[in-house]
């Protein structure tokens, strides 16, 4: 089985702070990591390969620095890596990102695509499902467990109050939860070999014909960020001590009336 995992390089949000004045993320000096859900997707793919054979490729769309995330995936044991990068791709929203990734995945070839459920910086959870729609293949999101039976997969999908056990035929796309498979570390030998392997770059020309060029980049993106802002911290509350129950009730009622809540 040929498995392709889509990975996004994201700022380690546990170390990101918000600029209280501009409402922007302060990314400077923040280490970049492989999006956690995607890393568990890599682990799941490697386990399938170890059990049933096949190969694992990783794909990332992003600036040239995303190379480092791809090398980490190679050092964990992935066989091939593809960097999707071009100035034409800059500014893509989830719709455009999915178009480009779907085009690249079609070129690379796959039996199974694994994406993360969502990226910790964007949090939309849209890219995986949109890739599947673009490629016209079945998808199962929120996957917590995968079992391979020949060319069919039995997957456990997390739902609000229950699980669904689904059977799905390949080719298909799954979106991985971080609970799917706790990722392994890189192997030291892997780190050495990661830089002996080649990361293949796919640019705008390489993907020509796989998507409508008017649907990508900033211009092709239907969404635009209208405004981004941080939450304002609430002011300190008022303390009223030593009130009787009746006094407290009338105070609360008057406060609510004051704010037009009642």
């Amino acid at each position: 089985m040929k498995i392709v995992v889509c990975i996004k390089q994201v700022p380690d949000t546990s170390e990101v702070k918000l600029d209280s004045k501009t409402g922007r993320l302060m990314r400077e000096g923040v280490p970049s990591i492989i999006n956690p859900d995607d890393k568990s997707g890599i682990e799941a793919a490697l386990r399938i390969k170890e059990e049933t054979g096949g190969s694992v490729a990783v794909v990332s769309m992003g600036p040239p620095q995303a190379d480092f995330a791809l090398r980490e995936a190679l050092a964990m044991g992935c066989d091939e890596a593809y960097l999707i990068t071009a100035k034409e791709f800059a500014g893509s929203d989830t719709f455009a990102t999915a178009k480009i990734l779907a085009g690249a995945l079609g070129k690379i070839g796959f039996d199974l695509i694994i994406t993360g459920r969502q990226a910790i910086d964007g949090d939309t959870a849209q890219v995986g499902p949109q890739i599947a729609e673009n490629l016209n293949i079945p998808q199962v999101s929120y996957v917590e467990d995968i079992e391979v039976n020949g060319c069919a997969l039995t997957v456990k999908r997390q739902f609000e109050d229950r699980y669904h056990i689904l059977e799905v035929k390949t080719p298909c796309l799954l979106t991985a939860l971080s609970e799917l498979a706790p990722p392994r570390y890189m192997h030291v030998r892997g780190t050495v070999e990661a830089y002996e392997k080649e990361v293949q770059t796919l640019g705008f020309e390489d993907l020509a014909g796989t998507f409508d060029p008017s649907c990508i980049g900033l211009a092709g993106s239907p969404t635009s960020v209208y405004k981004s802002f941080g939450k304002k911290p609430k002011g300190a509350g008022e303390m009223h001590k030593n009130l009787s129950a009746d006094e407290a009730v009338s105070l609360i009622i008057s406060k609510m009336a004051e704010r037009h809540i009642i």
Partner: protein
Amino acid sequence: MDFKLSKQHLLQQKLYRDFAEAEIRPIAQEMDETETFSMDLLGKLHKYGLMGIPFSRAYGGSGGDYLGFSLCMEEVSKIDGATGLTMSVHSLACSCIDNFGTEEQKQRFLRPLVDGSKTGCFGLTEPNAGSDAAGQQSKAVLYHDKYTINGTKIFTTNSGFADTFVMFAMTDKSKGIRGISAFLVEKGAPGLAVGPNIRRMGVRASSNCEVSYENVEVPASNRLGKEGDGFKIAMKALDGGRIGIAAQAVGLAQGALNEAVKYAKERKQFGKRISSFQSSQFKIADLQTRIDAARLMTHRAAAARDNGENYSSHAAMAKLFASRMANDVCRECVQLMGGYGYCREYPVERALRDAKITEIYEGTSEVMQMVIAGAMKVF
């Protein structure tokens, strides 16, 4: 001249950092308190190739280099000096075989040590032969094609759980240091006995015992190098090992300073954070500067070794400077944190205890001074 780590080394550093944070930090204090090294941790160090970093992939090693090894020693020792020691001594044993073993010995002994299956130890020091390692009293006598070894080694790190013992013994007393030979002894050999853990001030989690050899027989094919090569084998391994100890000292110091800075930013006295006092800021700046100087010296020694240059005196200077620096830095970090720094609840107390040994093992500071002055031809 380029002072940047390569991308490949940065990737390794990320692995070592992630590993140390997740696997060592949660258990470091408990290992110290209970004076036991976690076998689960040892297994993981092997599994991810951390025990075979600078050894060739042709023998199952990780195929890295000494710069990578020193990055690992630093990251691991930031969190726990004892884990650094365990790795360092294992690596000493490996490098003896790597440097002097025959092809057959490398396949039989080096491969399992670097591919993640076995752990090694290095027995040079004896109760009466420390800095004066040439004063070996252990003896090995050849009869037909077997050596019979008798003697006692002290402070053999990892001996409590090691599978392979690289040890040194006199084969010809009349030849002095040219009468010392190196041997490979396997765990379980009749007559090989490992004593209880020696109770120590620091690096308490590591296994460190007296090892006695009583009529231990090994085939002549277990001799490393020629008869009389033993001293050379030990000194060459220690030259490289010192790069690791320098890195261990850098890690201990950086780990302690990171903790102290975090604390100083939180702790308030006289209505202000300790970190807002200029005296604290100046102290922290000085400490970081000294750590950085030691790190550069360590990387220089490692790079010289990786480039096949003469590195013996670079390594000795790095160890001399870094180990003193680590003791000063850890002591000052406890000072910055006051009474809390002195408590076992905070890891700086452990770092200060662990730092002391870096001035002693793999050659004391005085021995480093002898090596450096010797290289300067100051006789």
